[in-house]
């Protein structure tokens, strides 16, 4: 987790779930923690906590704990979890909502200027546009 996302959020803890629900349209309490999302997640090997644990931390109101981990920034929005959840939870939208909750506080996870020039030359535009949409306000 980069330094800049550790700064204090101007959101009251009791409001966090409401905001997540507004952005994602998802109710985190629907999840019964079966772990199927994590089992199919292509990025889970490198996540320091698992996708289903993100939901668990939201359920118990441990948002500060959630922010200590890299999981939301390694999520590739591949929709594998979403397409397989037996309870119909759209976890990719919850991941997006947590990212946006931070980004909308004007906290960038990655700025265009952080990308090395040679990478900017080499990467397909779709990667650069996609990354800016996911990682910057």
């Amino acid at each position, binding site marked *: 987790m980069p330094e800049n996302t550790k700064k204090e959020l101007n959101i009251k803890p009791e409001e966090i779930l409401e905001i997540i629900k507004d*952005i*994602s349209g998802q109710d985190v309490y629907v999840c019964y923690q079966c772990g199927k999302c994590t089992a199919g997640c292509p990025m889970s090997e490198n996540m320091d906590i698992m996708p289903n644990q993100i939901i668990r931390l939201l359920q118990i109101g441990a948002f500060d704990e959630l922010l200590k981990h890299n999981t939301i920034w390694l999520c*590739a929005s591949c929709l*594998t979890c979403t397409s397989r959840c037996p309870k119909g939870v759209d976890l990719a939208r919850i991941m997006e909502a947590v990212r946006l909750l931070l980004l909308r506080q004007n906290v960038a996870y*990655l700025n265009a200027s952080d990308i090395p020039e040679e990478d900017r030359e080499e990467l397909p535009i779709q*990667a650069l546009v996609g990354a800016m949409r996911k*990682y910057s306000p």
Partner: protein
Amino acid sequence: MKVNFYPGCTLKTKASNLERTAKASMAILGIELEEMAEWTCCGANFSLANDNIMKMAAPIRNLARAEKVGTELVTICSACYNVLKRANYAVKNDSEKLEKLNLFLEDGKIQDNDDQYHGKVNVLHLLELIKEKIGFDNLKKYIKKPLNGLKVAPYYGCQLIRPQKELEIEDQEAPEILHNLIDALGGDAVDYSMDTECCGSYVEVNRPKEVWLASYRILRQARAAGAKIMITSCPLCLYNLDKHQFDIEKEHSDFKPVPILYFTQLLGLALGLPEEELELNGTKVDPRPVLKESGLL
């Protein structure tokens, strides 16, 4: 026959060989991909935020422009397909969203003749166009150079097939359209369980090492299933899967690189396009030795 075509940014830059090989192959099949007169980037990623529809303005503006030409819009890049089709699904099933976006289009006109969108356009992937307008059986008639049973791994990735409910192109757990194409070209489509596994997508921009591992798992499995070559329709999948293979090889001595092509290059090859037109020099892992070995070059 002419079809209205949305190329998207990446096909105009890094993946220009995808566009050129698609156009040349389709010309042989009697279909002209006619580029839209005016278009903008689609946004590259469909926004997953429910409370803000502004990120749909770009795809809907493009669909409004396409609607003036006809009811079909063909695209090739998996990401463009995903964004255009999902935005289209969203407004077709929610008139309030459509109305809001139309108000915005009216307010934020880029072109004087930019108009409202009425939800009449059907977004098609080039693979669907081939399947529906030509048919895979019929395609065999055009083949000049059958692939001699070349073992090809079809790689679908995410954007082309998920979410199934909105894209409706294929079964998201067991897609077949690339398999069917390979078989029609005289190749042997390899079955492996990672054909719909994500390559890591835009995470590459920030955490390339994590993306390698995803690529490694996919490539290793395709190899183990006997694949000599892999095909995809997504420029970012091609980039991610190709880019780190020599690094992977250094770390894993048992790994053998797998060349990756756009499906249009393999199609063009089988349709008899000359080698220079196939532009086989765009990737780090050179596909030409494998194709030569198989008597295809």
